[in-house]
């Protein structure tokens, strides 16, 4: 009971702050009535408009679908590759300059190439998300592998594990805490990239909803509604990974070392 009271109390301050912000927003809009920019009330109506057509569900599902594929693809390529590269430090040295050149290139710069290779459609968007997630994840895995305490590796070698088995039975579990953090950050990037990709490379999803609402008659209420939904879904995704992270930390008591 006491814990619950504390929990609801922790919601009080942010809740109040959001109310104050909404009030300020509404006030600003009332003071400048000829703006195209909608107030919170009109935005809420915009969201309500999107619900009955099932549009909103369709767009959210389309965006989450692309993020899932692009993200998982990046995980399945970057994690094994990162384990190998982190393990064989020489390979890392060969790869490093290439990684450092590719890293500052925004995933959005790949949009023309994505369309060139995959045309306008899901594949182009998935590719862009993959590109956006792959490098940060690879670098996170490499540095996590190099941070694995030598004593775990020595113990593994002592039991006669071959390098491949050692990667699976020692390195992979040992990096999980840091991997979880990397995954969370990367999923955030994926969610940023999908919106941008959908503005150009496809005609569905939350990013498309936003440009489309603007192009089709300056429906800025729908634009802002789309933004709010992007924020909320992004928060839910982050919370999902975060709870996974916490479950793991709890199980292994890894928090202080992660």
């Amino acid at each position: 009971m006491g814990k619950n009271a504390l929990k609801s109390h922790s919601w009080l301050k942010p809740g109040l702050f959001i109310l104050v912000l909404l009030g300020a927003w509404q006030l600003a809009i009332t003071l400048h009535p000829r703006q195209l920019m909608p107030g919170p009330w009109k935005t809420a109506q915009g969201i309500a408009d999107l619900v009955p057509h099932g549009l909103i569900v369709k767009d959210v599902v389309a965006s989450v679908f692309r993020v899932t594929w692009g993200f998982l693809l990046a995980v399945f390529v970057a994690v094994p590759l990162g384990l190998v590269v982190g393990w064989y430090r020489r390979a890392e040295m060969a790869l490093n300059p290439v990684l450092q050149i590719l890293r500052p290139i925004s995933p959005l710069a790949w949009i023309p190439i994505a369309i060139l290779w995959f045309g306008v459609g899901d594949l182009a968007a998935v590719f862009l998300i993959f590109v956006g997630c792959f490098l940060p994840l690879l670098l996170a895995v490499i540095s996590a592998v190099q941070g694995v305490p030598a004593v775990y590796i020595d113990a593994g070698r002592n039991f006669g594990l071959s390098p491949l088995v050692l990667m699976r039975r020692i390195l992979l579990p040992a990096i999980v805490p840091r991997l979880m953090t990397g995954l969370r950050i990367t999923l955030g990037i994926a969610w940023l990239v999908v919106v941008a990709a959908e503005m150009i490379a496809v005609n569905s999803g939350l990013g498309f909803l936003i440009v489309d609402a603007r192009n089709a008659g300056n429906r800025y209420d729908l634009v802002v509604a789309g933004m709010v939904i992007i924020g909320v879904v992004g928060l839910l995704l982050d919370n999902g990974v975060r709870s996974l992270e916490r479950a793991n930390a709890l199980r292994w008591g890894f928090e202080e070392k992660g």
Partner: protein
Amino acid sequence: MSATEKAASTTEAPASGGRVKLRTTNVGMIFQRDGKSLPVLENIDLEVGDGEFVCLLGPSGCGKSTLLSAMAGFLTPTSGKIRIDDEIVRGPDPRRIFVFQERGVFPWLTVEGNIGFGLSNLSRGERVQRVNHYIKMVGLEGFERSYPHELSGGMKQRVEVARALAVNPDVMFLDEPFGALDSITRLIMRGELLRIWHTERKTILFVTHDIDEAVQLSDRVVVMSARPGRIQQIVPIDIPHPRDISSPRYLELRDGILGQIGLAHRL
């Protein structure tokens, strides 16, 4: 100094009188640090008998842990040879398990998972049986499903010892295994290690900087001097187990080693 070394090298034969299990011949180790050569070990000649319990004793920085790592195959000596069963040691091997301080326990596995780690080639039934046997031996019944962070330091140390025993090695290397434990737990663990050694008869090489620990546990104490690490003297401990740690012979041996290290027994 060199006279004592000569004297030491003549007393190298294993006290147990049995077969030689491990033999180092003229082992030297030089580390390269910032372009400078740092001699860590010099001229290490040692024979350890099968089933013998030998302590490597010396001040910190005397290279005793380095010597142990080289014997276990984690480091290659710069000169000389280390042989186990007349075979040159070329790398770590499941027949010889290194026990770290409790740091070596895998935090992502339960007690069961840790102890069964080296048994993946056994059938499930055999593995479970072996794991349970060693869980009982180290007194961790009831903690099979616990993760290491739920255990005390002494319990984690037991997990590591059990994990090593489970693969039935001939040799166990222990690097200050009880160094991080409180003094009461340390005493209990020493007793348990001796009990296990009496039943399992492994060859044990045990690194410590604690003179009492060395005299309480081992058949022979290898006293090392620092920088570069050399064998200063090898002291056979001729007190039968269980050892009375207030007997005159015990105190005599302990004081002798204290004298060897150059510390009179007064502060």
